[in-house]
């Protein structure tokens, strides 16, 4: 079963512009992006990203042991957004960027810290997909937990429907 992510060029630019901004103390920025699901062929799924939320500077916690750490205010906001998104079946994705070219994956810290967030989102927004997206300088990777699933599934591709079009296929070959 394939899962693919799509977003508009405008949203991609908005996300990149925010994630590339320096933060007063965190080494990197993180954000939340929202998405709705669509059925694809062969029992596959699409995640169509709708809007981006830039996490305010003061919602970060100063923790030099990690690239960025967000505090309880950011998580509370996220949970409320998932709750309000329930009628529209809109889910939430934690997103950040690795400043390198090519296909990227979760670092050890990412793999330890981010997946545990997802069940909480799913418990509030059961009919939506939630997950994790990591961008690189010229690529993007995603992991999605579909409604009713307990697994985080790796996305087969990410498309930017902009001018120009970007297609980021997942090959498993990490940069």
């Amino acid at each position: 079963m394939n899962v693919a992510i799509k977003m508009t060029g405008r949203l991609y630019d908005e996300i990149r512009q925010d994630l590339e901004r320096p933060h007063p103390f965190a080494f990197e920025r993180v954000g939340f992006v929202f998405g709705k699901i669509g059925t694809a062929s062969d029992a596959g799924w699409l995640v169509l990203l709708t809007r981006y939320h830039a996490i305010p500077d003061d919602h970060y916690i100063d923790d030099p042991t990690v690239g960025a750490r967000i505090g309880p205010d950011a998580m509370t906001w996220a949970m409320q957004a998932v709750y309000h998104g329930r009628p529209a079946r809109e889910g939430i994705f934690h997103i950040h960027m690795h400043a390198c070219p090519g296909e990227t994956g979760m670092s050890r810290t990412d793999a330890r810290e981010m997946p545990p967030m997802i069940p909480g989102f799913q418990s509030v927004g059961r009919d939506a997909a939630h997950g994790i997206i990591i961008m690189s300088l010229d690529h993007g990777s995603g992991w999605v937990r579909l409604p009713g699933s307990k697994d985080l599934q790796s996305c087969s591709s990410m498309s930017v429907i902009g001018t120009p079009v970007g297609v980021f296929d997942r090959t498993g070959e990490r940069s």
Partner: protein
Amino acid sequence: MTAGRFSRQSFLGKDSQLQIARCTIGIPGLGGGGSHTVQQFAHIGFKRYVLYDGDVTEDSNLNRLIGAESRDARAQTPKLHLAKMMILGLQPDAIIRGYACKWQDNPEPLRECQIVVGAIDEYRGRRELEIACRRYLMHYIDIGMDVHGEERPVIGGQVILTSPGAPCMTCMGFLTEEKLGAEAARYGNAGARPQVVWPNGVLASTAVGFAVELVTGWMRTARPYAYMVYNGNDATLMPSKTLKGLERHVCRHFSVEDLGDPVVMAL
């Protein structure tokens, strides 16, 4: 991928062939317009296709169906088969998902495309396809031609590019309630529409040019929408006057609420 074959289109950018090869093109309709685009996409190097057409080749198609020969009309070769052979003859490693039906009968594969090129006969069909492209985030390029007037026939047509977030075909003044209403009133009495190969060629080539620009960005300008009006009698293709003032226009016909599978809100 041999370097030589595409050396004449290297101006499209150093990674252009990779970008082209990764893009999935959807073509719902492989008739006079669609068959032209298939041929050109294959030449350029596109390798991923989602195709729809349930029709077979008939004698009356041979004046314009690219890839068809006289024997195909005798054999009633499916148009889908002709398209596949054209593609595979140039791109033997192409991934082609072909469906001998209308796209509405099996819509899910189309949603996985990045660009859809439609050569649809009817305004309502265009509206439906544009809605699907907005819902599932795809650029939509529409082509169409018509011949009107009996005393002095006039060949007209259009190429329209509409993208998620940009002005839609209604914003651009192409789809109107008047046209849709007149079409509904004529339902069942439309008859065979005049169709000839050379306007199809002009329109299809322009559409393919838009698609290549979208994929490679070779012109280094962002063009998320376009509406070119074709006059076959004057041999001109000009931007529509209805585009005036749309530079800052925000489309109110589609929003992020419309993305993804429709959600019926209980009342």
